[in-house]
């Protein structure tokens, strides 16, 4: 154990290993924190929630940071929800029963393109009389535009786009025939053609509540073309969730598969070598038969016919890799170690077979195995991603591979939604590189003969 610790200390000589370690530590922190902040069940529910959960989010929006690289900034997303406390209505009684509630949705719009859509979501509680709402749009240069009125049901959404009267009003206002509502609302009247007027906009909603018990919540959403840290997909889902939750899945899959397959394989090889005879022969034959059973087709078969659970896949991978060709390598090493005089000595002072296998054979080759495990991690991370890309990803859990798969089936690359594929792909590559860099450095530390190569 001390040898292993001092080996880890030697890693400091390799800058690539330090970078790799830092990346791994960050990934680990993300992998640990994500399930705490957003528990598994909640994440699965959100990811599978569909439009009901995601209706305030824009569809296929790029990450917000992509604007840094653009000359004309794409419209950002504005969500102001009174139910979340983003705005407080000012309430004034008008008569015994009737109250007036004034909502004021104010937001900055410093972008160069128009938002694709603006919706006001309204949810009211009432007995007989629906609350009545009047809307006024106030532009940065102080123009006030009547933006329609409606009676709110339990759940009403007001699509500005579909208001033909507003459209005609805006045609008059801007003097441009056939202008769409949204362009009309954001147009700069002092500039030629249709151009965005940047600045602080406000939508005032004045609601009349006719019953003492009734209540009203309004949510104003100006859908953007960019959203958040990671953007959204075709179902308006925030990709951050999948990118974050992909981390623990990838780490768990990669690490568990690498650790469990390596240690069981090593244990079986040690057991076979030590017991010898027919036990060894049987292990050898199983290994040979198993080595011609292809892993991926079996996974695809099980995935298509039975279940695509990521945990089932993990179990299968481990099961099919236990008798992998690694056994042959370990066996060759153990056959040498077995002849060491210290093994004879241990037998002479009465060590049992199990003790010899676990305390004397296996520790001898740990230095060889630790780098191998670390190098093995990415290949299992990639395997999980490959399965997902092939459409065999877990149907519930959002993972990096599934993002790529979704993007692919939605033709993301043809539609120019590069972020959708590049973000999970970059994470996969970064994770793979980090483990590879640390693994190769560990190999040099623990197996010094490589240093000369």
């Amino acid at each position, binding site marked *: *154990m*001390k*040898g292993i610790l001092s080996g880890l200390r030697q890693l400091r000589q390799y800058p690539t290993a330090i970078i790799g370690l830092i990346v791994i530590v960050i990934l680990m922190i993300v992998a640990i924190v994500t399930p705490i902040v957003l528990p598994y069940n909640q994440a699965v529910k959100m990811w599978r929630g569909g439009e009901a959960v995601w209706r305030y989010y824009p569809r296929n929006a790029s990450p917000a940071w992509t604007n840094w690289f653009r000359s004309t900034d794409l419209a950002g997303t504005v969500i102001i929800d009174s139910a979340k406390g983003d705005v407080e209505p000012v309430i004034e009684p008008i008569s015994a029963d009737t109250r007036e509630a004034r909502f004021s949705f104010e937001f900055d719009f410093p972008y160069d393109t128009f938002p694709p859509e603006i919706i006001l979501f309204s949810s009211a509680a009432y007995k007989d009389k629906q609350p009545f709402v009047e809307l006024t749009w106030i532009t940065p240069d102080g123009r006030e535009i009547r933006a329609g009125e409606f009676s709110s049901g339990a759940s009403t959404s007001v699509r500005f786009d579909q208001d033909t009267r507003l459209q005609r009003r805006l045609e008059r206002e801007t003097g441009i025939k056939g202008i769409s509502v949204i362009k009309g609302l954001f147009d700069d009247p002092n500039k030629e053609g249709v151009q965005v007027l940047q600045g602080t906009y406000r939508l005032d909603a004045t609601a009349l509540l006719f019953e003492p018990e009734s209540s009203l919540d309004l949510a104003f959403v100006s859908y953007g073309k960019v959203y958040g840290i990671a953007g959204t997909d075709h179902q308006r889902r925030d990709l951050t969730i999948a990118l974050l939750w992909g981390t623990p899945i990838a780490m768990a899959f990669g690490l568990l598969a690498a650790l469990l397959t390596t240690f069981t394989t090593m244990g079986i090889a040690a057991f076979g070598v030590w017991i010898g005879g027919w036990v060894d022969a049987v292990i050898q034959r199983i290994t040979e038969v198993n080595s011609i059973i292809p892993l991926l087709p079996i996974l695809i078969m099980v995935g298509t016919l039975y279940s695509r659970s990521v945990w089932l896949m993990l179990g299968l991978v481990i099961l099919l890799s236990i008798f992998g060709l690694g056994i042959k390598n370990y066996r060759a090493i153990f056959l040498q170690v077995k002849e*060491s*005089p*210290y093994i*004879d*000595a*241990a*037998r*002479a*002072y*009465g*060590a*049992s077979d199990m*003790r010899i296998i676990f*305390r*004397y054979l296996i*520790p*001898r080759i*740990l230095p060889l195995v630790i780098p191998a495990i670390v190098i093995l991690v990415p290949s299992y991370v990639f395997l999980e991603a490959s399965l997902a890309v092939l459409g065999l990803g877990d149907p519930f859990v959002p993972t990096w591979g599934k993002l790529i798969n979704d993007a692919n089936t939605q033709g993301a690359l043809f539609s120019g939604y590069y972020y959708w594929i590049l973000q999970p792909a970059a994470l996969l590559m970064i994770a793979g590189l980090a483990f590879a860099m640390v693994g190769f450095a560990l190999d040099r530390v623990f197996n010094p003969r490589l240093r000369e190569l």
Partner: protein
Amino acid sequence: MSDVNAEISAVDHITNDQALLQIKDLHVWYELKRFGFGHAGYVRAVDNVRFVLEQGEAIACVGESGCGKSSLMKTILGLNIPTKGDVIFDNTSLSQTKGEDLRRYRSKIGYIQQDPFGALPPFMNVQSILEEPMIINGIKDKQERRRRIEKILEEVKLTPIEQVLPKFPHMLSGGQQQRVVIARAMIMEPKLLVADEPVSMLDASVRVEILRLLRKLQEEHHLAVLYITHDLSTVRYFSEYIFVMYAGQIVEFARMEDLLDNPKHPYTLALLEASSDPNADNALVQREIPKGEPPSLVNPPKGCRFHPRCPYMMEGICDVLEPPNIEVTPKHLVACWLYDEEKGHAI
């Protein structure tokens, strides 16, 4: 063979039912396999060997490399199964012992190996190395383990203890490594110590120290010691008795001075000529062992196994008949036709 048995049973150092260690007509044959399964004969590494060892006594076993010394010793330790014959140690018959009992049998004999670095697990520090035998043999009390470690390290002169315990084998010199091996062999307080060429891989400068240490331990603990070597020059420090092995068999058996001053077997003579003193400067001088190759143990020569290399070979006798054990002087046995009253002629 049966006629020979009758002869030697008279000598108490060949058979003695009371002795701590009794080697009875021991055969250790390794099966040779063809293509991994077909039978292709035996390596007769130990072929009909018998002697006894009393409590508190040391005995040396000398012979060329490959004559079966390690095989004999590993069988005594219970690491090999006797093909024929038996080893009786402390009233336990090895051939009757199996499983747990065999492990217990093994743990009662201390084992000192040739290559001290190889004999120590490289991933354990001295403390773990010394604790292992005690943990395995059920000494659960930490204080007791600590007490034993302190005592034995004191005895093998590995001090200061606190500095030695955390060290790994590669941090120790060859001599220190061998002291750890000796300490480990002694930690279960065995009655018998088996030392397989314990100094042959050490620097000439520390050989005598290690041999003196072994001798001291033997005397203080009243140990029985089987000391194996291919180098006659180191035996004088040690034992009361000595036997010479050749091709899996004992060719001469005598008291130490008797054998060194008055060797009888032509092979012993040749070995003595070739030996050097352990603390002399000529340790590097190549030791000439009799001309020719040691014989094949798969097909040993007919008659006396030494006859192809023997300068005194008598045709028609030595190459036909196996020599009997002849007691030339009291307690001095030699397996050589030269000393036969009818057939032989003295050298």
